[in-house]
């Protein structure tokens, strides 16, 4: 550190040439984890160097290249050229199964469209989270249909062409009915509930908690 004080009066060692200084700036900017100020560059380079001048040369050298020398506030850094940003993304597509809530909501929308959120909740027996609807909207499998002409004018949801394409359906009417589902073994063959048991609206909400026990394996 003591030599540094001598720079004012003239160092014993001549400063390296400009091309060499440019190399130094290049290496420092490249290896530094943060943008580097001119003062910092000068402090790290040998005495008598002119980092600011070397920086400008370096910036010109990289003009139009895949990497650029850019100013970040008071400091300098090297960055990939913005137009090549697309190369820096490695897209990995991850297939993920739709959640049970989303599938059920989607199914209700498909079978009952146009359907309001309140109706979906009534049929499912549990409330439908905002996220579930958003996800289906984002997937473009449902879209907002006409408002229902009832108090509050709630929006309705209908399935989209994208939905039909994805599931290979010509129209939502092609969805198999309950009878067909049962014939295909998709419905559990339980005896129809006894007449006496029918008037238990309070138990339906309870049923929601228990609902899917038998099919639980589906999600695993």
């Amino acid at each position, binding site marked *: 550190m003591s030599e540094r004080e001598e720079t004012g009066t003239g160092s014993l060692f001549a400063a390296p040439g400009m091309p060499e200084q440019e190399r130094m700036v290049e*290496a420092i900017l*490249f*290896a*530094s*984890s*943060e943008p580097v100020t001119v003062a910092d560059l000068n402090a790290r380079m040998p005495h008598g160097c002119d980092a600011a001048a070397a920086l400008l040369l370096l910036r010109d050298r990289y003009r139009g290249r895949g990497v650029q020398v850019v100013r970040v506030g008071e400091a300098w*850094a090297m*960055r*990939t050229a913005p137009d090549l940003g697309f190369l*820096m*993304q*490695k*897209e*990995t*597509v*991850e*297939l*993920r*199964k*739709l959640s*049970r809530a*989303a*599938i*059920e909501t*989607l*199914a*209700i929308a*498909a*079978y009952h469209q146009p359907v309001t959120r309140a109706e979906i909740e009534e*049929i499912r*027996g549990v409330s439908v989270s905002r996220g579930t609807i958003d*996800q289906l909207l984002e*997937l473009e499998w449902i879209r907002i249909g006409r408002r229902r002409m009832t108090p509050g004018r709630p929006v309705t949801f209908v399935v989209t062409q994208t939905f039909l394409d*994805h*599931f*290979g*359906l010509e129209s939502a009417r092609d*969805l198999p009915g*309950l009878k067909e*589902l*049962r014939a*295909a073994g*998709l*419905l*559990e063959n*339980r005896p*129809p*509930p*006894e007449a006496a*048991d029918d008037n238990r609206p309070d*138990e*339906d909400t*309870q*049923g929601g908690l*228990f*609902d*899917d026990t*038998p*099919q639980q394996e*589906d999600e695993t």
Partner: protein
Amino acid sequence: MSDPDPQFDSVADRLAAEALIVDVDGFEGPLDLLLTLSRTQKVDLRQISVLALARQYLAFVEQAKALRIELAADYLVMAAWLAFLKSRLLLPPDPSDQGPSGDDLAAHLAFQLERLAAMRDCAAKLMARDRLGRDFFARGESEGMRRVRRVKYTATLLDLMQGYARIRTRDDFRPFVMDRTDVMTLEEALERMRGLIGYAGEWTDLLSYLPEGWGGDPKRRRSATASHFAASLELVKAGRIHLRQDDTFAPIQIRARDPHDV
């Protein structure tokens, strides 16, 4: 030992040898020690005198013993082997001997030493190279790759239909306890029979106690019969009734026990 020990010719050598002894723990095994000893010959490892080396090593082991330094077994094994090698090298070859010649053994030891020395040399050269993170550097700012994780959600028509089926059949489904319309529990039967038993002064068929609506459907009848039978056993145990069956599979009959019965 009849041979004079040449390595103790000078004081310097003697000191070196003693230093080795003190340092014995610092060696990585007999081969390492041999390599160090071979350095005192100050020749190319290719021209090393294995005989001299064997003598040096054996002298070293003797010294260690004299100083009561415990040598690990592998040092002693090497000493025994070198003693054998020394005798092979000194004695004229025995034509009847099957084993490899002393020269072959010596050449192999020299090879091993040279190879170890070469590897040490390489290791040093390797470590002296310009190294990443010390002499040259990777990009400091780990801009790296932006990993764009695109999640693609999938569902099949089957998922959809199963989901719908699940909802539509939910109303048919009742929690387990609610579902036992065809089951009569022991408690229920016991409760029933306690109330009725007072009227059973005569032997009566147990089955006649089944409640209305439980005698027709076989499933219900089975359950009710079983629970009533179990309940009657309870009542027998409690001393409330008598129980009898005339024959195998004959009707089971019960009768209230007279409190004055003995």
